[in-house]
């Protein structure tokens, strides 16, 4: 028996030995909360982010290098969250071990802002004379809650129509449709040739501009309330649902993919409505594809769009709010935004940098144009419950042939059962 235990202990010791030999040795046992004071008055900060591509991480690291050069007493460590972002941030915020500065997506920003885990920035903005008027106003507003600012937008995205030139030409179409009315005409031609005209998911994040263009609104921002049952919402939603029934729109799932990129890259669909994130994906996976990008369809001069934006925000638990604010203002400031523009990864949130960006990447014009008439993808603290309620109801509308009025009624009921 003693022998066995010794063997086991030996094995354990051996593995601890391997542990010690496992690379750099500074295995993070001490600097797990890298917000302590270093020597000589230097300060360590952590920056929390997700990374949609290695290039994005590279960009942030370059920006931080520039920041550290300008502020030699502040050191920043990057933490990339590779799991579900909110699921990771909730325990970290709850245990006061969140990164000092971190990404916050506009879609759930109000939930974090209203629960008091983010640091209000207004005093720091005043103190540092940050020019916040330069941000696209709707982007800035996405991170304000009850009169306070809890984050500054780092970049933005909007919807545009990407179209396959060859497929359109097959149906005799030489300029892509500009309005939803044109779209219906062209879609009939495409469908007659056996081509799927448009692929869009049944997701309010994509079709909400249609509702807005037709004069509806699902959400009352002033009262943080859902307004599904407003009669004005019906016509736009009905138009969207009808297009599915006519076979003019198919979901990416119908085409065997989880988003519209792959079917578009494979030439399975003539048009898709996605943000600028589709461009790098197409460059990598669809080298021979002849495609163009044009403005999201309009409706009698109305050109609503959906804005997707992410902020840098500061955890209220930070031990170094002044330095964290300095970092935040740098990352959302002109120099860092210039680097964002250069990289072509995202559209700068500062209007002053958008011109430069377009000069370098003229293909992105439709996305930048989209920012002007855009509404942030955000429904107050109703957040995911709101989105789930309307998405599920719309899905039922499409799959089970329900009217828009029924869909909206159902969404309203579902939302009520899901929030206490």
């Amino acid at each position, binding site marked *: *028996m003693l022998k*066995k235990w010794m063997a*086991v202990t030996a*094995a*354990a010791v051996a*593995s601890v030995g*391997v*542990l010690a030999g*496992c*690379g*750099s040795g*500074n*295995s*993070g*046992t001490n600097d*797990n*909360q890298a917000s302590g004071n270093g020597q000589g008055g230097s300060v360590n900060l*952590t920056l929390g982010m*997700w*990374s*949609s*591509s*290695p290039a994005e991480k590279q960009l942030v690291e370059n920006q931080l290098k520039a920041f550290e050069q300008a502020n030699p007493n502040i050191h920043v*460590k990057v*933490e*990339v*969250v*590779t*799991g579900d972002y909110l*699921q*990771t941030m*909730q*325990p*970290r915020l*709850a*245990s*006061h*071990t969140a990164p000092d500065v971190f990404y916050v997506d506009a879609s759930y920003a109000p939930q974090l802002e209203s629960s008091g885990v983010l640091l209000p920035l207004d005093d720091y903005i005043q103190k540092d004379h940050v020019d916040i008027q330069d941000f696209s106003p709707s982007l800035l507003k996405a991170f304000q809650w009850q009169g306070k600012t809890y984050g500054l937008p780092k970049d933005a995205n909007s919807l545009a129509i990407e179209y396959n030139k060859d497929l359109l030409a097959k149906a005799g179409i030489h300029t892509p449709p500009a309005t939803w009315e044109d779209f219906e005409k062209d879609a009939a031609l495409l469908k007659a040739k056996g081509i799927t005209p448009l692929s869009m998911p049944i997701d309010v994040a994509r079709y909400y501009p249609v509702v807005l263009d037709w004069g509806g609104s699902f959400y009352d921002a002033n009262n943080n309330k859902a307004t599904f049952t407003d009669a004005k919402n019906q016509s736009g939603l009905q138009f969207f649902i009808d297009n599915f029934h006519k076979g003019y729109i198919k979901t990416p799932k119908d085409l065997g993919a989880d*988003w519209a*990129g*792959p079917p578009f*890259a*494979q030439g399975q669909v003539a048009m898709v409505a996605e943000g600028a*994130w*589709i461009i*790098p*994906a197409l460059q*990598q*996976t*669809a*080298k021979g594809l002849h495609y163009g990008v044009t403005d999201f369809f309009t409706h009698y001069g109305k050109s609503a769009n959906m804005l997707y934006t992410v902020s840098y925000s500061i955890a209220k638990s930070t031990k170094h709010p002044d330095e964290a604010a300095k970092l935040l203002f740098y990352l959302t400031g002109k120099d860092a935004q210039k680097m964002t523009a250069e990289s072509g990864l995202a559209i700068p949130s500062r209007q002053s940098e958008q011109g430069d960006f377009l000069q370098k990447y003229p293909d992105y014009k439709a996305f930048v144009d989209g920012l002007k008439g855009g509404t942030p993808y955000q429904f107050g603290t109703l957040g995911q419950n709101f989105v789930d309620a309307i998405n599920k109801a719309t899905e039922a509308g499409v799959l089970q042939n329900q009217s828009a009025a029924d869909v909206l009624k159902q969404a309203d009921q579902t939302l009520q059962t899901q929030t206490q």
Partner: protein
Amino acid sequence: MTHAKNFRPLLYAVAILYACVSLLPFVWSVYTSLKPTSDIYHTFVPFGHLTLHSYSDIINNFPFLRWLCNSVIVATIVTIGNLIVNTLAGYAFARLRFPFKGALFYLFMAVMMIPSQVLLVPIYIMLAKLGWINTYQGLTVPFLMNAMMIFLARQFFLGIPQELEEAARMDGLSHWGIFFRIVLPLSRPLMATMTIFTFQGNWNSFLWPVLLTTSDDMYTLPVGLNSFYGQYDAYWNSVMAGVLLLTLPMILVFLVFQKHFVKGISTTGLK
């Protein structure tokens, strides 16, 4: 065993058919991982286009060895710990008599029935207070016990004939002596099963390591490899290459330990 002789050809046919069903996706993963990125949306790619680029990309551009090393350390410690803790408990629940045994056993069973999603935040807060975030002890110590394995061990110990233990007891062996000298040597299939399951469970484990590690030098393999899924640009060749790099060491472990699925002395010793 003689009783299945007549069915032999049929048996092989079924065995091979099901092997195809279970191997097909694996083969598909290998094939996908060899596609160049420009061809990932094409179902069939000519043989000449296939490339090992996804693999070299992962190994060269990411701290792959470091992640592998972390995974090996964590999975090894957790597996050794689990083997000790769970077999001891399983044996006690199967054989020894002590007050509140049934209640205690059901306590372990009950723990398995609560979805871990609601325990995540409280456990995290506790580990953060201990200062264990982003450390090896954080990745190992909380996972040294597994109720499912205790249950498994108990069921198997119940199945071992008791006569040997009785004989040993008459020879004056203590409970510890019986367990280590008599019972454990009889339990090779059980220990092999537990090793495979525990190692694999920990090896593929994602939820906890992703929460508990904050710097990429502490990532385990699944956490590191998960950074290949972009939100919008999941390049399946890289993803599948990552999945296969993750799977291969596990297959190795399986190959080593499945050998112990042989008739134990538990039966032959009683002839």
